[in-house]
């Protein structure tokens, strides 16, 4: 287990290093940097002035030098300066993380809370009208674009209550914040809950056919005890995997949902930064997302060993 942990950790570092090179090169392959965009929109070009700004921003340096200075900065905890606001990138990024993190956790809680029980019900009542209905709902969850779902929710609020649940950065109390965040969280989490439901269902169906379930029934265990204690605890492993995969999808959902609900989070900020070619913000944010995804997957991998004692990590 120890050796596996170390190897896995080193692979993680390698992946993140590769990501940093990839994102850095990709952003700079493009013709046109922020200076071009500003000068294009201003409508006049003074080459001397343009070169001066490029020099100030360090964009005239060779790409390798730019990369090394970025990584060296990262090691010191210095993320550089945002091009647009000219503030340190870390001051732009850090304050935006808590909202997004709260939203992500709420969405994940929402998706597990709905996905797992509904998946179990669907499996236990296989091929009944209830099962068909739940399957259609979950399939539609995978089909609705989450930004459209968000817009529909907004529309429903306007129609029935006459107001739009706008997020405020200074809520009156934690409950209000929770209420305001849970609406976009439901929009993001619907897709994840649909996937978790489908997976729980198929995993449960597989387990329910096993011999030990028949044994449990034969010795007179009650139906809920069979379904939840014997079956679900064995069916839960693939579901944990999907939570790891969903973490990545969730970030995609957050990007569009924060845009729809006008939430000043880090995911919407990424899109704005990409539009402006604000390299320091984009590359740091993309690295941040990659770290989150890689670490979540690492934790999920490790949790297998805890959840299923048969799995041992060794060479």
């Amino acid at each position, binding site marked *: 287990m120890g050796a596996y942990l170390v190897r896995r950790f080193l*692979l993680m570092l*390698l*992946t*993140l290093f*590769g*990501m940093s090179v*990839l*994102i850095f090169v*990709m*952003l700079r*392959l*493009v*013709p*046109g940097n922020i200076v071009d965009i500003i000068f294009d929109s201003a409508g006049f070009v003074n080459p001397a002035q343009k070169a001066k700004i490029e020099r100030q921003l360090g964009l005239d340096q060779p790409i390798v030098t730019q990369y090394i200075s970025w990584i060296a900065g990262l090691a010191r905890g210095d993320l550089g300066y945002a091009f647009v606001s000219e503030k340190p990138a870390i001051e732009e990024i850090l304050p935006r993380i808590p909202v997004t993190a709260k939203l992500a956790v709420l969405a994940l809680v929402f998706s597990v809370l709905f996905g797992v029980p509904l998946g179990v019900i669907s499996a236990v009542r296989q091929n009944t009208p209830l099962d068909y209905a739940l399957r259609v709902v979950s*399939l*539609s969850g*995978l*089909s*609705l*674009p989450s*930004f*459209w779902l968000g*817009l*529909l929710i*907004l*529309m429903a609020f*306007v129609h029935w209550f006459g107001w*739009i649940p706008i997020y405020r950065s200074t809520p009156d109390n934690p409950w209000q914040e929770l209420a305001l965040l849970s609406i976009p969280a439901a929009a993001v989490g619907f897709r994840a809950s649909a996937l978790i439901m*489908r*997976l729980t*269902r*198929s*995993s449960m169906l597989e387990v329910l056919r096993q011999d030990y379930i028949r044994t449990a029934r034969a010795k007179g265990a009650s139906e809920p005890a069979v379904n939840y204690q014997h079956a679900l605890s064995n069916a839960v492993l*693939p579901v944990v995997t999907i939570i790891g995969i969903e973490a*990545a*999808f*969730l*970030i*995609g959902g957050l*990007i*569009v949902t924060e*845009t*729809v609900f*006008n939430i000043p989070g880090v995911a919407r900020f*990424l*899109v704005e930064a*990409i*539009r402006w*070619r604000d390299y320091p913000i*984009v590359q740091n944010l*993309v690295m941040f*997302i*990659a770290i989150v*995804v*890689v670490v979540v997957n690492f934790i999920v991998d490790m949790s297998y060993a805890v959840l299923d004692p048969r799995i041992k990590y060794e060479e």
Partner: protein
Amino acid sequence: MAVIDHNAGLSRAGANVRGPFGAVLFFVRRYPLGAVGALIMLAFVGVALCADWITTYDPLSTSARSSLAPPGDKHTLGADFMGRDMLARIVYGSRISLAVAIGATVLGCLIGMAIGLLSGFFGGWFDLLVQRLMDIMQSLPLLVMALVMAASLGPSLTNTIIAIAIPLVPNVARVIRANTLSLREMPFVEAARAVGMSETRIAVQHVLPNTLAPLIVLATAQLGSAILVESALAFLGLGVPEPHPSWGRMLSESAAEYVRTAPWLVIFPGIAISAVVFGTNLLGDAIRDILDPRQRF
């Protein structure tokens, strides 16, 4: 070349198959939901192909008089702020959405298949390198990867297809590689080797055709996410540029204002996206059940 009689195969398996459309009818009876999905897909493809006959409006022509016209006699699904007919925009938008989604899926699957086959069959340093590269690409969510690619390639139809196709590659490459690894150990590959076939010929003639079933399963699943990613990119303003009508951009940020005043601008493009993705998902489930019965969720 011998023609395989699929109907005879199905009959032997105990299915009641008769007539020229026997296999199709069997599919409809056995997988009604999959048939519905196939019907939805066919309908959208039909709409995209026959766009000129379905609507007389030009999706690009603006008219100040019908700005924000509600659905009615003149404009069946209403008109947007610039007075462009919504039905025409949705009908012509199906061309863009389907072209981008199908183009991206095909491109992503072809690249992924080539990479997966090469790294699975020949292994070695190439395999090691490719696996790490796939790790790196998979450490970013699909949408984020597509966003960065779209922004760095610049807005155009081809670039949008590439930006969606590349993030799909790792998934395909992984599955094809795993398949190739197990196929490589199969007796028929050993037999081919024993009669002196070259490695390349074995890979192309014996291993490749056997990876097609999982590839088709994967491709239908990816098609749905390609459509969703395309609409999200367009929604965020980084998709296929104006003047092409695109479902995602019709829902774009400005639409949030119309939630109050002109809900038809929000409802109809979203229905189009959801319906076509729903169709691919239904069809994809059925195809997976047929081709790969072990893996179902």
